[in-house]
């Protein structure tokens, strides 16, 4: 499986894609530096920081954008280049193929996104290691869950990016703000709830709008597993071009 993982990382780790991830990862850190200098004494600073920078920008924007750019390409590029036949006709189980693509997506997006969120939180929220750890762990859960969904989408349709955009911005961004309970079926909802669940004191601002911590962890795990299974099943049933 290491061979497939290396291949997948090389395919996904193109210069332009990595440059985009780097650029987007630097953004929250740069903003955290700027706003912490400008509004250092403001009492509402922490809540604004959590609402705007952590929730709005990081969890609601950069996390899904970066993950969709990488994970939809995990199988999408293979289908577009018609190179998938080189790996599906080898004597290896389908779940090895699916897992290598998922891991490659997580390895390429995870470290930069997690570091970005944790460092931004460190700068913006008083150098509290517990908050940084909560943000980092929650982002890891978010990256893994999104990667599982978007890898599957890349295998299902040539319009995986469109699917991802609709899911993230329509379902998670718009609909979840109007309909209660959507957060139970939302990666953004899981990510914020895990963040809050790990450090309820530091991230208390989120307490009014997050689901229960166990539900969030269970949801993230279940969604990741279900979409991983669907990916393996699709690999078994599909006609490979």
């Amino acid at each position, binding site marked *: 499986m290491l*061979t*497939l993982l290396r*291949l997948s990382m*090389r*395919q996904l780790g193109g210069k332009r894609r990595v440059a985009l991830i780097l650029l987007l990862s630097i953004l929250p850190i740069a903003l955290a530096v700027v706003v912490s200098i400008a509004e250092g004494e403001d009492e509402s600073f922490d809540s604004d920081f959590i609402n705007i920078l952590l929730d709005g920008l990081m969890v609601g924007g950069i996390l899904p954008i970066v993950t969709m750019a990488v994970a939809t390409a995990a199988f999408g590029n293979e289908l577009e*280049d*018609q*190179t998938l*036949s*080189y*790996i*599906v*006709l*080898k*004597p*290896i*189980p*389908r779940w090895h193929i699916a897992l290598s693509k998922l891991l490659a997506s997580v390895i390429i997006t995870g470290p930069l996104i997690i570091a970005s969120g944790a460092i931004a939180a460190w700068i913006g929220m008083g150098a509290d290691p517990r908050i940084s750890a909560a943000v980092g762990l929650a982002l890891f859960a978010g990256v893994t869950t999104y990667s599982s969904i978007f890898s599957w989408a890349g295998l299902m349709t040539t319009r995986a990016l469109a699917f991802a955009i609709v899911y993230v911005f329509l379902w998670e961004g718009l609909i979840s703000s109007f309909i209660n309970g959507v957060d139970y079926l939302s990666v953004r909802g899981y990510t914020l709830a895990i963040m809050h669940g790990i450090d309820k004191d530091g991230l208390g601002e989120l307490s009014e709008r997050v689901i229960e911590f166990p539900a969030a962890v269970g949801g993230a795990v279940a969604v990741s597993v279900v979409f991983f299974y669907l990916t393996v099943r699709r690999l*078994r*049933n599909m*006609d*490979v071009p």
Partner: protein
Amino acid sequence: MTMPADSVIDVADVSKWYGSVVAVNEVSFQVNPGITALLGPNGAGKTTMLHLIAGLAKCSDGQITTLGEPVRNNPSLYQRVSFMPEQESVYGFYTGRQLVEFSAKLYGLSPLAEAVDRAIQIVGMEDAQNRTMDGYSRGMRQRMRLAAAIVHDPQVMILDEPLNGTDPRQRIEFQKVMERLASQGRTILISSHILEEVETMAGRILLMVSGKLAASGDFRAIRAKLDEQAYQVRIVVDQPRRMASAIVALDDVDSVSFDDDGSIVVLSRKVATIQTTLPRMAQENGIRLTRMEPIDESLESLFEYIVER
């Protein structure tokens, strides 16, 4: 249809359709050790058929077995089978050797280097093995892809248009490699839309037209039927008028005409003779022959002619 007990690939009443489009229609045949060519014009369903045999696509109806086993989702079977797809896209960032190593690793071969060296040697790419796949000519890329496909020493090889992009010299080399592999007891199924590409190496042909198996059997018998029809060959030379004058004088030629792009179109009922005569004639007259190819439409009409019979 009764299947021979020892057939390596058994295709039984197989159909494949995509929505309302029927790509393969109730096709049955068996393939035994040696080289078998799957012929047919573009769009005949050859690639779909090979994808079904390789296990890449699912039959809408019927069944296929290779070495007695089902071909879909059967990783243990893939250890004994190889498939070389038509599309040339490969992992361009790999060197040729890395591509073969990659394939060898996925087959779980050990010792790795020995198998890789052997495969690269078979296709004669030792000197260029460390260049990237993107840096190869089309023919070299085809050979390295073949090396990656045979690195695990498969019993059954399914090759989709492997001669695409190869020049005449590479074609001869490729034929030698195929003949050597077949002589060692392997079963090789090779597709082409150009009859002459596989004429010299395939002992048996399967002829597909419009998704159906139009004819199968001994190559010479089918060839003889084809030879009864006039056949068009396009040639490109550096002195077209001089070449055309020389061609007109040949007994086996029915007509000679020029295309708008300056290429010469030769119509003949003795296409095999033409294929050997024209290059020799060009050489003797100091004319540079840069291309010689059958014209698809003509080939298609020949295939249809066979079907009608």
